[in-house]
Structure formats: C-alpha cells, structure tokens
C-alpha cells in the first residue's frame, strides 16, 4: 500500500463497491518485458465495456477499407463463427456444462432455414417453400432453443462426463440422421422419400431479405452478421451481470453450494442450454443463408472442436476472450494458406520457442547455429557422395551434345547412391516465397532412394526404373513423413533430458528434422497441418494457460 500513496485519495467511496477490489489494478505487478506491454494493452483496450466499442468500430471499418472478396469472406466467418462460439460461451463458459453436441444446434438452425427457403426437389419435384427470411430465421432460433431444452431436459440428471458423452451422441446422431434419412417410407407417399438430401445437403437457398431489402453480397452478409453479433454480445454481457448470470457462474464453481443458496440448478441448466442453442441455431441460419447451402458436415466434429478451441483460446468464461478467439481462429488458418505467411509464422514460432523455452538462453542460439552448421555439412556431404540431380542432368545433356558432335558414345557421370534435389524449382511442390526457396535449397531432399531388403534374393536389382519386389523405395514424401515422426519423438526425448550438453546435441538434429518436416510435408498439406496445429494448440494452451489468453485464473476449491 505504501508504494501507492495516491490510491487512498483516488478512490471515491460508493455504495456496493469494495475498496480492496476496486484498487486491484493498482496493486497488481506488471510482468516484465513484452508480456507486460501485452498486459497493459489488454487492460487499456479490454477493461470495462471499452473493448466492445473497440472491436465494433474496427469491425465496422472493414467494409469501407477493402472490397477484397477474400477479406470479406474471412470477416464474415469471424462474425458467424464468433456468434456460434458466443452460444458455446454461455453453455460451457458461464455454466460449465460440457456440451459436446453443440455443433448440432448449428445444423438445426441451418436446416430449419433451408427447409423454409428453398426448392426441396429431393423430397418432391414440385415442393418449394419460400417464406420471408425474417420468419425462417426466427423459427430457426426458436426451434434451436426448443431442441436445446429437449436435450437439456433429457440429460438433467447427468453431470460432467456423462453429460459430455450423451450430448456428443446427440450431435453424432443428428449428423448421422441428416446423412442417412434419404430413403424413408412416409405415409402418403408411394416411394421412399429423401427427407434430408443426404450428404449433399440442401442447396440454392434464398438470400436473406428484410422488408424488401435483399442481401446478396458478402458485404451485406457481413453487416447482418456484425449487427447480430453486436446485439448478442450486448445481450450476453448484460445477462452475465444479471442474477441469472451470477447464478450460472456460481453453478459452474459449485453446484451443491448454489443449490444450498436457494437457486435451482435444473432451471439454470435448462436456461443455459436453451439460450446457447438458440444463439447457435441463429448462427447456423445466417451461415446457411450466406453460404447458400447447408451440409451435414457443416456441424461435424471438426466444427465442434474448432468452436471449443475458439472459446478456450480466449479464456473459458471470458466474453472478450470469445471475440479474440473468433478473430484468431478464423483469421489465422486462412492466412496459413499463403505459403509466405505460413513460412514466416512457422519459422517465427520456432525461433520464439527456441529463445523462450530454455534457460539459460544461449542454448537456443548455440543450437540454432549448430543446426545451421549441421545442415550445411549434410549438404556438402551429400554433394560429395553423389552429385545432385540437376548436375547429373547437365552432365547427361553435355554428354549427349558431345556424342552428337564427335559421333562417339560418351557415357555421362554415374549417379552415386543418393539421388537428391538441390534446386527447389525441380521439386514438384508449391513455392512462391524466397524464404521457402532458400530453405529448400539448403536442405538435402532425397528424390528416390531404394534399399534392398536383407532377405531379398541376389537377383533383385533395386536400381531398375521400376524397382521389383524386395526393395524398399523411399520418395521425397516419405522422408518428410519420417522427419515429422522423428521430430515428434525427439521433442518427447528432449523434454526428459536435463544436461545442457546432451540437450544441445539433441536439439540440433531436432531443429533440422522440424525444418525438413515443414518444408516437405506440413507446408504442402495445409488443411491437415492446420488441424494438427489446432490439436497441439489445445493441449499446450491447457497446460500453460488453462485460463486462456484473456481469462482470469479461477480459484480451485479443494
């Protein structure tokens, strides 16, 4: 207290405010370095209600700053999936209910909208329903809330993990049903009826139209989404401050104590389920309208996991965290599609990890240098063993020219035991950044290595163009895969090593393997890589910051 003599005067006493709590910010110690700056920034921008304004103003500026289709698409994803995450935020964040069927409500909303605003030719060639979109959106939301109530009511007796598994079953059954209800005997029809359109979903949906104003552009949908998100955020913000919100949070911490204080956990759970499901269904309806179609896969397990990642990343139970999570989870993955950005992100993260994970810090620098030297030695070593394939091609061409000139057959140089790429342009992989090209020309990238199996007969010749049985053949991809697996193993081994010398000795090949895995496989298969990193992110986040980026650390009752 004595360090802050002004605090006593600054505090204007108010009824219902605790001095100690109000002055928390003054007493808090800033963390040193970049993290401290980050803390200050988040505090200035995100304290009170200010963050809502900041986000909305920036959000509202987007359509004026750019008319790039891709940017608007991503912005639209942010608001719609942000809305979905907001629903989950109520169920899992405030109320602490682990609902793993949450993506199902997104489908409920999307399909309700679709059934009310499309030509349903798969059911009957003449059937077409085109209701005003305000009606279909409202009924989607209401139906979502009803289904939420139903699911909540059927699982009221369950808690924790049981709830998780029953809701997961609900989500899977929904996707299963939407994909499978394609030949159903309906009374009144002669043939079996395709009720849901199966995995192909429902297509050619109407655009949204409110009171004569038709919304058909990406900008239009972005505005609708942004307005919807704003209203929902304000609603959730006030709900959080209301008695219901407080009761939810207290139920999350201790259900028995909540009950003892005279609140009804069953009613609270049902309300959380219904409101969360309604928001998710609303988001689903907007998504269907914007996409112009809806598929069962829109609400499948990957969507569920990504939504959980969104909520958890920002901090479970933190409203600004949901917005931040939605921004990160929807902007970063598409940005990774660009080879340049993804390469910079990968190498940047690698450098940051190297310099922050290990104490003393010089280990990072030494092992990085070591990896550089190691790679260079490998490069020259491979060059000594056998010339890289572009040299072989040149030699073959020269030999051909020479033989044409002289009329004698000139044999070109023999390849060594290794055929490898040294020029990235020979590699059949996308590359349009200098960074990638530089790294690839520094790596030894084997092209096609054949190893004779020890038990294969003597007559087997593995150097034939199409190697016969009895040869192991390793292509470029296989080396990338092997490097990926080895790098994972090495990381696990590294975590167990305590001596500095050994650790550096292991870190050098690990860095090299990581770069090989990245250049040969991860940067090529972007969509799989994205999911791998989301999985990794969830685990690391839970270990190092279980309260997310903006969440507050919760006190555990023992």
């Amino acid at each position, binding site marked *: 207290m004595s360090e802050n003599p002004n605090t006593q005067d600054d505090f204007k006493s108010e009824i219902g405010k605790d001095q100690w709590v109000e002055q928390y910010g003054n007493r808090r110690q800033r963390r040193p370095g970049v993290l401290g700056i980050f803390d200050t920034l988040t505090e200035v921008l995100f304290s009170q209600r200010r963050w809502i304004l900041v986000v909305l103003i920036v959000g509202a500026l987007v359509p004026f700053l750019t008319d790039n289709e891709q940017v608007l698409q991503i912005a639209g994803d942010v608001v719609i999936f942000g809305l979905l995450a907001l629903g989950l935020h109520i169920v899992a964040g405030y109320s602490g209910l682990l609902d793993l069927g949450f993506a199902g409500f997104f489908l409920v909303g999307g399909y309700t909208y679709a059934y009310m605003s499309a030509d349903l030719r798969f059911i009957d060639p003449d059937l077409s329903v085109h209701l005003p979109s305000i009606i279909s959106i409202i009924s989607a939301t209401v139906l979502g809330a009803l289904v939420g109530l139903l699911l909540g009511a059927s699982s009221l007796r369950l808690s924790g*993990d049981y709830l998780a598994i*029953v809701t997961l*079953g609900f989500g899977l059954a929904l996707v299963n049903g939407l994909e499978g209800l394609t030949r159903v005997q309906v009374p009144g029809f002669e043939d079996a009826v395709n009720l849901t359109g199966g995995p192909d979903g429902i297509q050619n949906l109407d655009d949204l139209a409110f009171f004569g104003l038709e919304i058909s552009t990406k900008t239009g949908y972005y505005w609708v989404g942004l307005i919807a998100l704003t209203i929902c955020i304000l609603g959730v913000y006030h709900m959080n401050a209301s008695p219901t919100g407080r009761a939810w949070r207290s139920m999350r911490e201790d259900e028995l104590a909540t009950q003892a204080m005279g609140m009804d956990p069953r009613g609270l759970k049902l309300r959380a389920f219904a409101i969360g499901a309604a928001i998710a269904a609303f988001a689903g309806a907007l998504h269907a309208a914007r996409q112009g179609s809806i598929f069962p896969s829109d609400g499948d397990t990957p969507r569920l996991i990504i939504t959980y990642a969104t909520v958890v990343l920002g901090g479970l139970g933190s409203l600004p965290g949901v917005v931040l999570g939605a921004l990160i989870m929807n902007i970063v993955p598409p940005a990774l599609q660009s080879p340049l950005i993804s390469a910079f992100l990968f190498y940047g993260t690698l450098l940051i990890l190297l310099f922050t994970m290990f104490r003393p810090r010089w280990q990072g620098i030494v092992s990085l240098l070591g990896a550089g030297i190691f790679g260079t030695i490998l490069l020259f070593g491979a060059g000594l063993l056998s010339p890289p394939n572009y040299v072989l091609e040149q030699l073959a061409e020269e030999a051909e020219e020479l033989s044409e000139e002289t009329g004698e057959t000139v044999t070109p140089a023999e390849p060594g035991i290794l055929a490898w790429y040294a020029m990235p342009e020979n590699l059949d992989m996308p590359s349009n950044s200098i960074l990638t090209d530089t790294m690839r020309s520094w790596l030894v990238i084997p092209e096609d290595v054949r190893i004779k199996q020890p038990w294969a007969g003597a007559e087997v010749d593995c150097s034939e163009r199409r190697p016969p049985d009895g040869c192991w053949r390793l292509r470029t991809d296989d080396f990338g895969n092997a490097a990926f697996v080895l790098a994972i193993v090495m990381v*696990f081994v590294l975590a167990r090593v305590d001596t500095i010398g050994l650790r550096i000795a292991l870190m050098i090949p690990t860095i090299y393997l990581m770069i090989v895995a990245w250049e040969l496989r991860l940067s090529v298969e972007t969509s*799989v890589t994205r999911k791998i990193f989301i999985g990794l992110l*969830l685990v690391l986040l839970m*270990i190092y910051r*279980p309260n997310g980026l903006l969440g507050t650390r919760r006190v555990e009752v023992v």
Partner: protein
Amino acid sequence: MEDLLAQLPQQVLNGLTLGAIYALIALGYSMVYGVLQLLNFAHGDVFMIGSFVGFFILDAFVPQLRESFSLGMSIFVIALMLIAAMGVCGFLGVIIEQFAYRPLRNAPRIAPLISALGVSFFIQNAVLLVLGGDRRNYARNFVIPPQFRIENADFFAFGGVLVISAIIIGLLALGAYIARKNNRLFNDASRLLGVLSISFIVAGALLMLAPFGGRMVLSASRIVAIASAILLMAVLWALVRRTRIGAAMRAVATDQEAAAMMGVDVDRVVMFTFFIGSALAGAAGVLNGLVLGQVYHFIGFNAGLKGFIAAVIGGIGNIPGAMLGGLLLGIIEAFAQGFISSTFQDVIVFLALIVVLLLRPSGLLGARIAQKV
C-alpha cells in the same frame, strides 16, 4: 419373422466378436477413469495406432506367408502383431499421460478433457498426414485362411460344451458365494463366475438352437478375436486382483490421497494404468483389423466412443462392468445392424446408452456413489 429367428444366432455371434473388441477398449477407458476420473478421448486414437502397427507387421510377413502357410507361422505372426501393437500403444499411452494429462492433474475438470480432445485431433491428423487417408486392407486371409471356420453341424456340439461348462462355472460361483466370508476375492470371484455362467448358458443355448434356424458361420478370425480377448481379460483380472501393483491401482482408484499417504506412488500407478489400458486398446485394434479387415485414420473416433459407451453401460471405473458392457454393446449393435438399419446403428447404440443412464445412472454393475461435499 421366420427370417429374423434364422438370423438371430449369427447376429449373436457377430455381436460377441464385436463385443469382445469393445470390451477391450472399454477396459482401458474404465481403468483410466477409475484412477484419474478422466475421460481419455485419445483412447480411440491409440486403438487406431495399434491397428496400424498390426497392419504393417502383417504386411511385412505377407511374402513369407504367401509362399508357404503353416499354423505355427500364423500363430507366431498373430502373436507378434498383438505384442508389438500392445507395446507401442502402451508406450504411447504413457507418453500421452505424461505430456497432456499430468500437468493438469489439479486443474479444473474441463481442462484435461479439452486437452484430450486436442490429443485426439493431433494424433488423427498426424496419421492422416503421414499415412494418407486411404482405407487399407488387412491381408488377413494370408494369416487366417478363410476356409478355417465352424459351420452349422459343429455348432450343436459347441453349444453343448458351452452349456456344460456354464453349469460347472455356475456351481463354482455358488461355491464361491457360499464360502465368501466377507473376503473380497471370493466376493468378486462369485460375481464374475455368475456373470460368466449366465452368458455361457445364453450363448450355448443359442448355439445349440442355431442349426435349426438357418445357416451360420463362425470364421477363424472371429474365434481368434474372441479367444485373445478372453485371454487378455483373464490376464488383466489376475493382474488387478493378484499383484501388488494391482492392489495399488485399486487403492488409488478408491482414494488417491489416502493411497498416497499409505506410501503408494500415485504417479507410477497412473503411468502403469495408462500403459495397461492403452496396451489393451492396441490389442483391440489388431483384433478389429483381423475381424473387419480395414484400417484408416478415422476408425479411432468411433471405436473410442463405443468403448466409452460400453464402459458407461457397465458402470465406469468397474472392470467386470466394462467387460459386460462391451459384450452387451456389441450384441445391441449387431442386432441394430442386422434387424433394423445399418445406417442408424450408432443412433440406436446412443439410445441404449441414454436408457441405461436414465434407469441406472451409475451403470449396470457400478455402485451408487454418494456425492461428497
């Protein structure tokens, strides 16, 4: 109706095979849950890894098996597949525990669950990246030739043997029940033997009636699956009931803190539990490959889910419960597939789960636990 009756025994057989595999998965789930109260979502992916390990070993032996088939070689290859898959998976389970769950031992309940989802997503997609998304076929015909199988005529005798052994087991159960004298061993033994004898009677009666119904076939791969599953479960039973580490496991499951105070090394016990549970999942992966013949990166999700449902139906945290739940689930699923619709077998399985949970929230064999304040 005639048709349904004729199909019944065959579906029971299918269900038993499936159920034996589910029971192995459920055991791992149940043991981990018993010790840590943790829902290990990555368990299904460990199963998938096990299935792939078996696939690659079998693939390596195909040239030799193709040249000359011998029973000894075949048994050797199957044993090697099982042992390798169990070793790799056990090790993988220990690694997962150390890196993804141990730092979260005292975190809020939701944290390890999300971490588990992350691990599952990571393993699935890492396998997709490395091995590709193609479905691969187990070359099972080389190791278990399809002509080895039991058909109609043999079943009457087989069913008779089962019924007779059921009577013997039932007598043993009665004996154990009478002699139990508050002794845990006899208590458990009587319960297990009772369950066994009832299931043997049901299975035996069905088998004896089978030939009158219609054609039924039990392929050798299914026999291998059921026999190995029973063998593994028996080994597990002895391990948990008869060894020091098993006693430590039961102690930690009952009360972690009290066990720690009595000198049980909780970390070691958890590690061991993960090793055993994951090894069983790996074995289940190999058996699944031998029976169903396919493996790809996504099988783990479904299998893990079924394993968990089986564990919950039987009473999670309870080892005989997991076995019973697995068998029951397998039979439910086979019936759903055979008699109702193969599209909705998963939906029906989930309905069964919800019904069991609503009627007996702690599972069929689970004890009702009072909530601690």
